[in-house]
């Protein structure tokens, strides 16, 4: 088979792999894998092009990770999934409810992976995801624990550590985000972190200097300019250009009737001025659906100075979707392909950077996460 793109689909009831033809017109469906498991993230290791990790749990059982080294033909359970350290006697320890986010390590560190969990914890594997250990002092640091808050302070299915980003120039330089608990930066491979929340806003009436009130939904680094990051937050869309430590609220340029609230954030792999979001209704009781039932992607080609509505092919009305923070992504084609998956189990594709959309699949379970990968010719 020629080089092709595979779309990795993680859902509330299992995982699927969609293999594309070279034109991305026809897709071969492989799945379900782990039917009935909640799969929060399914990621292919770009360093070897064949190792898959799936973060899974079921309604009854504790969390685990599955690994495949043959693109999902066979799976093995991780020998030691992410788990917090036992609490000292007399103290209440935390337990991982589920692994939410998986990030392959730096290109120079084959076999290294990072995992973010609910409740918030950072874990690291050095053997391709088979065994995991706590990766950071933040898991047990009293100040960070206070910023993480309790289960009541997090998202409906638990507070999360997500958006683990490894600087492509430096394996020791990491970013993470927590819902809730802010954005943080490490220069020692995640051993320690410091907050990076300057300029980020919080819900009216709360103190933005208190890290616990910050709720970044999704953070992305631009591969073509690793000093630039974009962020979709509970309170707006932001961009930061390091070494500045102040985020700029670029979502102010979004149409007022749409707003700048949402979950996902996607960046162009080759153009750091291009990014896309999927706005949702964050008014009154926070319906978290497409504003007005009219779904649209919004894209910028000038680093957030202006935004264009991209909804050709999407339903014009009565479509009450949510697109979760991991459920929108891009491929590496030229022109770039964009993809999103909905809470109602639909997969959508644009082969031209968002100008025209087409439904790729319906009737899947609630889609939690999408990733793409370019597979080499067989």
């Amino acid at each position, binding site marked *: 088979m020629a080089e092709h793109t595979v779309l990795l689909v993680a859902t509330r009831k299992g995982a699927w792999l969609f293999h594309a033809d070279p034109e991305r017109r026809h897709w071969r469906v492989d799945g379900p894998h782990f039917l009935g498991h909640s799969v929060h993230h399914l990621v292919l290791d770009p360093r070897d092009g064949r190792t898959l990790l799936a973060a899974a749990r*079921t*309604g*009854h*059982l*504790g969390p*685990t990770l599955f690994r495949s080294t043959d693109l999902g033909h066979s799976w093995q*359970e991780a*020998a030691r*999934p992410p*788990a*917090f*350290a*036992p*609490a000292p006697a007399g103290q*209440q*320890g*935390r*337990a*991982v409810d589920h692994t939410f986010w998986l990030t392959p390590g730096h290109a120079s560190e084959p076999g290294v992976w990072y995992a973010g969990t609910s409740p918030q914890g950072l874990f690291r594997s050095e053997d391709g995801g088979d065994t995991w250990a706590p990766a950071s002092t933040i898991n047990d640091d009293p100040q960070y624990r206070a910023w993480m808050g309790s289960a009541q302070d997090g998202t409906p299915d638990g507070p999360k550590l997500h958006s683990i980003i490894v600087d492509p120039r430096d394996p020791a330089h990491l970013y993470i985000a927590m819902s809730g608990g802010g954005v943080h930066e490490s220069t020692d491979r995640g051993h320690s972190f410091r907050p990076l929340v300057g300029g980020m806003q919080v819900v009216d009436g709360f103190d933005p200097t208190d890290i616990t009130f910050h709720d970044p939904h999704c953070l992305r680094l631009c591969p073509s300019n690793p000093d630039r990051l974009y962020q979709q937050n509970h309170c707006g869309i932001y961009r930061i250009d390091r070494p500045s430590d102040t985020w700029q609220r670029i979502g102010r340029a979004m149409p007022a009737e749409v707003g700048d609230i949402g979950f996902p954030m996607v960046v162009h792999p080759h153009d750091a001025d291009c990014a896309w979001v999927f706005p949702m209704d964050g008014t009154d009781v926070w319906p978290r659906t497409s504003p007005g039932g009219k779904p649209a992607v919004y894209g910028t080609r000038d680093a957030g100075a202006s935004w264009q509505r991209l909804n050709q092919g999407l339903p014009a009305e009565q479509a009450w979707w949510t697109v979760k923070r991991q459920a929108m992504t891009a491929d590496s084609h030229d022109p770039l392909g964009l993809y999103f998956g909905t809470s109602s189990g639909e997969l959508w594709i644009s082969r031209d950077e968002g100008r025209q959309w087409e439904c790729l699949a319906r009737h899947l379970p609630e889609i939690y996460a999408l990733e793409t990968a370019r597979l080499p010719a067989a």
Partner: protein
Amino acid sequence: MKVLIPSALHSYTGGARAEADGATLAEALADLERRYPGIRFRMIDEQNRIRRHIRFFADGTQVFDLGQALDPAGELIIVQALSGG
């Protein structure tokens, strides 16, 4: 002792029936882990707490404490409790 395994864990045991040795629930689960690696963590978290939707019954009586003594000739039933849709 005989152990009845719920369907959610058959991927480890290969079926509903298993055997485990141990004088307590903790020892029986440790023996199950030796026989079926990975199975214990799906039922017991890293702080040694029984997971939310797992129940243990020894000879018909629910067991809440990992230190509870078990009858080596008895039966341990593991149940997957209701967990939603």
